């Protein structure tokens, strides 16, 4: 067919719709008139001739419709007509419409939110040019930590990256002239911005050529947000001097607005060259190859043509070279690469978000199943109308099309409502700052992709549940229906709607199971013993370096502070731990240890790699960590005394077999020094709540001083009062010292955050699943009761007992519920494996969870069948039988 003519014809019909219709009408009328003329000529009266002509013409409306369709371009008119009709039908049954739209809005909303998160976290990489080719390094245990010299070695020796940049964190006191405030920065390699291909918004960035060894590049680049909030968009800020931990730095530029560093969830306030890290983190040695805190992650673009596998092989060969060249300092771990932005979180995040997406998809499927059976019931109730339309000459395709239009209209309205809710939620989530003290944020602002996906999902689900009544319409026999009414026999066979209901209940049971597993996991992680008593301990975070103290002056100052804090009434004990307390922001520096007998301290001979903390006297008491044997630290464990260590139970049993065996024994550190075990403490959690039991060792903070520390203050006083008292006490000792005070419990929020979010998300999805199954079961039970009222009435009249009536009315619904629940429970337990990534000890073999699921499903069934059951029981045979 000539495409152009077709288009013209369609366009004509579109724009001159009524004119075309009139022309056609007059043409058809002309035909009848001509025929009537002929008949009249054969001797009939005009009236009779016209009547005969009309009969001979056949179904006028039908041929008019068919002609319209044959002309093409009828599509939109039909659509409009269908839409108008659908609107009228839906308005006539507002309950049905509201239920359908709400169901779908919830399901589409859930999908929009989950997809928005997935889009932001996984599909949309960092907001920098060519981020789809920007890979970050990881080693062995899924983190990218490495020593700065090792990073330099990798940067110079690899053949796979165009260039390799690196960054690590710098938690500092930033003084812009009046008062030092705490700020989080990235200490980056000089080529950071060049590797990212980002251009400054103001001023300039620093580059690799600015680096000339330690402390050679005192430059600062502000992020746009920090510049906006702390410098009030002052364009004169470039060139200004500020102080970081009392060292002068020059602001050289401001990063562009969309740039939030190289991690998705942690946005820095500023960037500074890592070569100056010695000034901001006292004790940091740029040249120390054994200090794995120098680089959090290295990243770069792969060279064109280099595959991921080749790059990883390349990294491993550089790593093997370094292990051979620096056997004492470097430990070879297998390397890997992942898209920059989530680092070690990527794998669990992907698994979890994918799991959520599957669950959200299941919700949508359940909603479709629900709506499908609603529509089927709706169509069954309209079978008389369908029959009438069929016998008036409408085609089945036409009726189906009209019903599909109804379904799609509901889908679109529901989808739009759901999308609107989802977008509001995503916007909220983007602005959400769950931890005021930590620079954590969720850049999940929805983009066009989210809108398109949500609308597509809405359309697809509209078609899905719209075609459920297909069979009904195709099989409808207008003659039978018009004659006997719509009561098609309620057979014993399994109907599509039964199957749909089972599927829906099964899906719901999956959701309920997973949310219960998650809730149990969260409860366990809330009540597990982390090896300290977080409830009655305040943590005072202080950075002496921010106030200009160097390492040598730090211990005396810290001692003075702790003594002052112990004077506060109600304070039982005060102790400090250097750098970060256990479980804060995933703090955990591991160190290699060797048996006392070991002479060759190469990596192959490492006995254990425990977490290491340096703590002051009194720390264990202040933290509520119980001592199993020996003693804690003492003030005379100073630099002149021999090295002493306290280890945890895991350490003691792993190396020495038992706690008592370990007491008084020696072991070696990487640098060859021997440490004597003077005490053993209980096991705890160090890096994350979900970790397996890890070994840990504690040294004296007097023997290993640091300027950054968390002071643990143990007290049963009201936290707010105590915080105020601590603050005033600290300023008595040193007014210029910036401190953050919070309860340990609150700070644990960061560690518990993933499982909290997971539980919340699963809880919401589980609730939605439960609601859907309630409406599903309710719909089915209510419908079957209403259809069988007469039969029930007869049964009652014949003397059926109440229990028998109930069994007849609801037996089927209950049976379907049981089957669906069993299937769903099975799949839900399978799905638990995915949850184990995020949720503490997510195990399906938990009798409480199993019982909970069964109980929940039974309750749902009870709630959903309550009203139909009441109705079935209230059957009055006299009234019913009299009715028709």
């Amino acid at each position: 067919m000539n495409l152009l003519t077709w288009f013209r014809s369609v366009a004509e019909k579109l724009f001159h719709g009524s004119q075309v219709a009139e022309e056609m009408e007059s043409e058809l009328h002309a035909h009848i008139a001509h025929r009537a003329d002929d008949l009249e000529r054969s001797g009939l009266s005009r009236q009779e001739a016209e009547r005969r002509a009309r009969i001979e013409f056949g179904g006028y409306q039908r041929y008019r419709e068919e002609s319209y369709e044959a002309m093409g371009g009828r599509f939109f008119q039909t659509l409009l007509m269908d839409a108008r009709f659908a609107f009228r039908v839906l308005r006539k049954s507002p309950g049905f419409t509201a239920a359908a739209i709400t169901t779908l809005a919830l399901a589409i909303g859930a999908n929009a939110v989950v997809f928005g998160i997935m889009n932001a976290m996984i599909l949309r990489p960092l907001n920098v040019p060519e981020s789809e080719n920007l890979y970050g390094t990881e080693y062995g245990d899924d983190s990218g930590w490495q020593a700065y010299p090792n990073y330099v070695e990798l940067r110079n020796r690899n053949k796979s990256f165009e260039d390799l940049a690196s960054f690590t964190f710098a938690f500092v006191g930033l003084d812009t002239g009046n008062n030092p405030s705490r700020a989080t920065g990235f200490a980056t390699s000089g080529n950071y911005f060049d590797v990212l291909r980002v251009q400054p918004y103001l001023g300039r960035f620093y580059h690799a050529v600015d680096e000339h060894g330690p402390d050679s590049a005192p430059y600062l680049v502000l992020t746009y947000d920090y510049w906006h909030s702390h410098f009030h968009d002052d364009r004169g800020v470039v060139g200004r001097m500020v102080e970081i931990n009392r060292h002068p730095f020059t602001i050289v530029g401001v990063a562009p607005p969309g740039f939030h560093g190289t991690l998705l969830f942690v946005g820095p306030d500023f960037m500074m060259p890592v070569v100056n890290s010695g000034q901001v983190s006292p004790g940091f040695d740029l040249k120390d190859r054994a200090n794995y805190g120098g680089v959090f992650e290295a990243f770069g673009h792969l060279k064109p043509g280099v595959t991921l596998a080749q790059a990883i092989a390349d990294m491993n060969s550089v790593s093997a070279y370094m292990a051979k060249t620096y056997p004492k300092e470097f430990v070879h771990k297998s390397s890997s690469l992942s898209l920059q932005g989530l680092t070690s979180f990527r794998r669990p995040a992907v698994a979890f978000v994918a799991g959520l997406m599957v669950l959200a998809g299941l919700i949508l499927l359940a909603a479709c199943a629900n709506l499908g059976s609603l529509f089927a019931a709706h169509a069954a109730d309209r079978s008389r109308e369908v029959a009438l339309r069929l016998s008036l000459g409408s085609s089945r395709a036409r009726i189906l099309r009209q019903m599909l239009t109804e379904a799609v209209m509901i889908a679109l309205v529901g989808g739009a409502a759901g999308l609107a809710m989802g977008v509001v939620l995503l916007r909220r989530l983007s602005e959400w700052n769950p931890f005021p003290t930590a620079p954590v944020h969720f850049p999940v602002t929805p983009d066009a992709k989210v809108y398109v996906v949500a609308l597509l999902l809405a359309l697809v689900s509209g078609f899905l549940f719209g075609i459920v009544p297909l069979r009904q319409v195709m099989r409808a026999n207008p003659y039978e229906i018009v004659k006997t009414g719509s009561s098609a026999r309620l057979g014993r066979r399994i109907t599509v709607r039964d199957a749909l209901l089972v599927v829906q209940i099964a899906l719901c049971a999956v959701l309920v199971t997973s949310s219960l597993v998650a809730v149990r996991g969260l409860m366990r992680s809330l009540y597990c013993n982390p090896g300290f008593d977080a409830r009655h301990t305040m943590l005072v975070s202080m950075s002496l370096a921010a106030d200009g103290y160097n390492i040598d002056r730090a211990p005396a100052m810290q001692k003075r502070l702790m003594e002052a804090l112990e004077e506060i009434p109600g304070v039982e004990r005060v102790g400090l731990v250097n750098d970060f307390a256990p479980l804060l922001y995933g703090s955990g520096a591991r160190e290699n240890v060797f048996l006392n007998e070991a002479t060759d301290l190469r990596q192959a001979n490492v006995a254990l790699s425990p977490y290491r903390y340096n703590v002051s006297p009194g720390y264990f008491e202040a933290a509520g960590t119980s001592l199993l044997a020996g003693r804690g630290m003492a003030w005379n464990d100073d630099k002149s005394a021999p090295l002493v260590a306290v280890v945890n139970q895991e350490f003691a049993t792993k190396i020495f077999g038992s706690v008592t065996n370990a007491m008084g024994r020696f072991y070696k550190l990487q640098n060859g020094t021997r440490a004597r075990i003077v005490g053993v403490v209980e096991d705890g959690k160090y890096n994350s709540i979900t970790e397996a039991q890890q070994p840990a060792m504690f040294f004296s903070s007097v023997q290993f001083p640091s300027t950054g520390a968390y002071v643990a203050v143990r007290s049963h006083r009201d936290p707010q009062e105590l915080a105020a008292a601590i603050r005033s006490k600290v300023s008595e000792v040193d007014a210029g010292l910036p401190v953050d005070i919070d309860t340990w419990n609150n700070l644990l929020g960061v560690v518990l955050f993933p499982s909290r979010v997971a539980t919340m998300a699963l809880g919401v999805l589980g609730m939605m699943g439960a609601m859907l199954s309630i409406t599903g079961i309710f719909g089915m039970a209510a419908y079957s009761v209403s259809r069988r009222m007469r039969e029930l009435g007869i049964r009652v009249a014949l003397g059926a007992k109440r229990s028998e009536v109930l069994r007849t009315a609801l037996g089927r619904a209950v049976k379907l519920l049981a089957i669906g629940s069993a299937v769903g429970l099975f799949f839900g337990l399978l799905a638990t494996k995915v949850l184990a990534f995020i949720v503490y000890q997510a195990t399906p073999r938990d009798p409480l969870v199993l019982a909970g699921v069964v109980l929940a499903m039974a309750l749902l069934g009870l709630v959903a069948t309550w009203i139909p059951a009441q109705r079935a029981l209230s059957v009055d045979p006299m009234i019913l039988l009299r009715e028709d």
Partner: protein
Amino acid sequence: MRGGVRIVLLDSLGERSYALLICLGEGALDQAQILPGTLDLLILKAVSLGPLHGYGILLRIGQISESALLIEQGALYPALFRLVRQGLLKANWGTSDNNRRAKFYELTATGRKRLSEGAEGWNRLALAMAAALAARPEEI
């Protein structure tokens, strides 16, 4: 009238094809009334002899097919509009012999081509069918 159509169809298609058509559903029969393509070809043929309005086409078909092919009169129009849409016919309003306003159809160049192709196809088919039906046992 419907019976007439069925007999014509049964005659022209043979029992098996007709049974197939019935299997496809009464709907197919109801909608088409006649083998798809046959009506189109007849319309093209009728119009090729000179511009005609709808009723005229019907009469002409009755005339040239010696009233063997009878269809419900309204069924003509969907076919006409389809042919116009396909660019095989073009239509203009004019005045009929009865002095009524009517739409007159005539062949386009494509329509003429399609007619000759269609006619050839039918002739081939008819010859083949005739030969097949004339086959006697001894020839196999």
